């Protein structure tokens, strides 16, 4: 009966779709009416379908009344574009084919975790909520924190297969037009098959293939995001992930925690300085150890020089082997404690920390000073508040270690200069990346 509504093309595509196990195809026939409903079980709310599609079908006598009933929902529309049916079905619509009419009813079910507290960027005094995996809830959170009428939300779809919803959010009045244009242009150039995390977009939009530092700020905090929108930055929200991307970003923004905004100015400055010292420590301590121990021991005070010499007396390998070995162990530990299943949890760190540190010195593989250096290096690394930068900072020391091994103190100095030159060379969507002391309202 309903066959005349479906043309061959639609039939063919429906047939393809029906190969999937979670697609439902139901035919219902009562005395005087007949209907076919098609929907994707995993994206639709079966409760809605049962309550508003199936149940009324048996309760309502005539087909015309049932048609009127379906039409009365604001979420329903008459199916006119047959080519777009499959797309709609995948988005959570249910298609209802009647004798001579067909309808689409929005029955989207959204599996979401409720708004949770921050897990990655924690603060002491600030707001504790993080973005939701549902794009609409995230935008809702953002709108809640930024109630200006010039806030624009542009929805896009990205990923040929995944068709993921992407929202570009900015304040139209203060956004820098050229940055927005550049962003949109770059977005239109990339055509990924599927996108699951917002960091993937960051990777795609980055012009450099091998970049050492993140040039787009990734955050899970709605308050940070709202603050960035207020200075004219652009936010990318992706459906299905609780992280958002903020462009453009500068180096110094990765060293600001939201706590800095909520503390006294003096405390905030102290914390910021502390983080840069942390960066210097995590970057420079191991290479400096090599440079001083193997090239310029006169750099130390005589007391320290002697105690290092004594504690290294049992170590058979040159300093760079010692450093590389110990750093490798430290990286294993860090990586293991992130990836380890929650149930195994503290075992990895306890075993690693206790046994490695103590036993390595007693076995004469590394000196005691080395343990202090590795520990300081590992701890200082986690002082950096934005996780993308913190993870990147783990990498910075290795080229410097190479330079220190080859050229000593000179290598460390030149290597650091090279790193700074590299940062100066970068830009994030036209904004100089390594520019400090900008005015607060400048994007």
């Amino acid at each position, binding site marked *: 009966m309903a066959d005349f509504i479906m043309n061959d093309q639609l039939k063919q595509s429906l047939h393809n779709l029906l190969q999937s196990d979670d697609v439902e195809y139901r035919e219902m026939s009562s005395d005087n009416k007949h209907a076919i409903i098609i929907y994707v079980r995993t994206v639709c709310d079966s409760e809605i379908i049962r309550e508003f599609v199936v149940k009324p079908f048996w309760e309502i006598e005539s087909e015309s009344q049932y048609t009127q009933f379906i039409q009365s929902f604001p979420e329903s529309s008459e199916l006119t574009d047959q080519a777009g049916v499959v797309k709609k079905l995948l988005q959570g619509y249910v298609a209802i084919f009647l004798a001579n009419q067909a309808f689409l009813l929005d029955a989207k079910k959204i599996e979401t975790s409720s708004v949770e507290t921050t897990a990655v960027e924690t603060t002491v005094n600030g707001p504790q909520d993080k973005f939701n995996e549902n794009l609409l809830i995230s935008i809702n959170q953002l709108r809640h924190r930024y109630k200006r009428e010039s806030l624009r939300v542009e929805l896009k779809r990205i990923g040929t297969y995944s068709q993921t919803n992407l929202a570009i959010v900015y304040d139209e009045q203060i956004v820098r037009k050229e940055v927005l244009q550049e962003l949109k242009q770059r977005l239109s150039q990339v055509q990924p098959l599927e996108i699951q995390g917002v960091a993937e977009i960051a990777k795609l939009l980055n012009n450099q*293939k091998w970049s050492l530092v993140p040039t787009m700020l990734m955050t899970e905090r709605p308050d940070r995001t709202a603050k960035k929108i207020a200075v004219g930055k652009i936010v990318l929200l992706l459906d299905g992930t609780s992280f958002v991307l903020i462009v453009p970003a500068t180096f110094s923004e990765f060293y600001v925690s939201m706590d800095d905004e909520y503390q006294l100015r003096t405390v905030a400055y102290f914390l910021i300085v502390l983080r840069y010292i942390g960066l210097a420590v995590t970057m420079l301590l191991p290479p400096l150890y090599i440079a001083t121990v193997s090239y310029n*021991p*006169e750099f130390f005070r*005589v007391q320290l020089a002697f105690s290092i010499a004594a504690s290294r*007396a049992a170590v058979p390998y040159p300093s760079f082997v010692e450093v590389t070995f110990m750093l490798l162990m430290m990286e294993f530990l860090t990586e293991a404690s992130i990836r380890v299943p929650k149930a195994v949890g503290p075992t990895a760190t306890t075993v690693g920390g206790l046994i490695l540190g103590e036993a390595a010195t007693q076995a004469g593989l590394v000196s005691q000073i080395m343990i202090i250096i590795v520990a300081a290096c590992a701890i200082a690394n986690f002082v950096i508040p934005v996780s993308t930068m913190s993870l990147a900072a783990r990498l910075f020391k290795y080229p410097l270690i190479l330079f220190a*091994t080859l050229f000593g103190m000179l290598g460390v100095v*030149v290597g650091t200069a*090279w790193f700074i030159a590299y940062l100066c060379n970068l830009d994030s969507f036209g904004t100089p990346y390594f520019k400090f002391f900008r005015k607060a309202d400048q994007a």
Partner: protein
Amino acid sequence: MKKSVRFSSLMIGLLSLFVFAEGCEFKDIDKRFFVVGIGVDKPENSTKKYRITLKMAIPSGSIRMGSESFQNFTQNADSITEAVQLIKSRLDKEADFGHTKVLIFGQQLIKEDYVHPMDWFIRQRFIQKVAFMAIGKPSAHDVLEVQPKYERLPSNALFMTFGQVGVESQYIVTEDLYDVYRNNKDPGVTPIMPVIEAKQDHFQINTIGVLDRQKLVSVLSPNETRIINMLRARIRKGDFQVSIKGDTFMVHTDELSANKKAYFAATKPYVDINVNIQGVIEETQQNTRITETVLRQVQTALEKKVSHDVEDVLKKLQQQNLDPIGIGLTYSASTWDRKDVEEENWKKLYPKLDITAHTHVRINSPGEIQ
């Protein structure tokens, strides 16, 4: 993309150039022997010019007082370079001079010559130019052999003493290598060096040797030493003894400053040394009650005594044509002549220069509660 590739290749290219600019070689700290002191003596029964002692530290894991260990290597040779090379042939690790902070000349040697051995110290790029210089008594080797019970690391006692991190004494004068070298070259000033006397298990450093351009001329007494130290404005703390009316007072100074004012253009050129002392009375012999009158008397007596001491020591040095406080520097700073003319003039002028001292003493407290 292209820009960054170009940039990186440029940086890598530049970096690879540093392979040639590399200053020191790769050698781990535990493969080095740290030389913590060098002594240069005159050999006793040998025709060689020098007897060189290198004090090598042996690092130990647990650093406790009196647990230091070191070994002295001695070698007679005609040059320091040769001696060092010969000593190296007895070692298993590379000698490292990065922490060589004490350079000692034996008493016998410095009476003849200190300029030649110092030449080696100055030319070695690995010896710090801020190394402490001293005269060893009875010999440099004996000083390096002393092992004080309170010392934790080899030579650390001398590092602490001269580095002024530890003790502050008005008798101890610190002279760095660059200081002695510069003063040796400068016509307006003559160098000095502290004298370290080696005792059984400690050092005694309370005199200075005054040098001319070539050798040691005289050794000052402890009292003269502290006057010179005071005039060179290196110390602020000191104690002075003064006697009036049968009682003897000790005055401790908190503030001590000295400056010199020269009048070279006067018909009879003269130098005024102004000393300012502020302090408290620290000790009395007869427990005299200190009234304002007594206080004034002590002040006046101390002023007189200090002025007298200062004039005494400076005149004595003047007769020997020595100028460790650098009056000649003031002269060259206030004349416009050509360098050689200036030098000639100064040589003629200095022996005739009249030196007077004026002391101003202020005693802030009688040091007692009444």
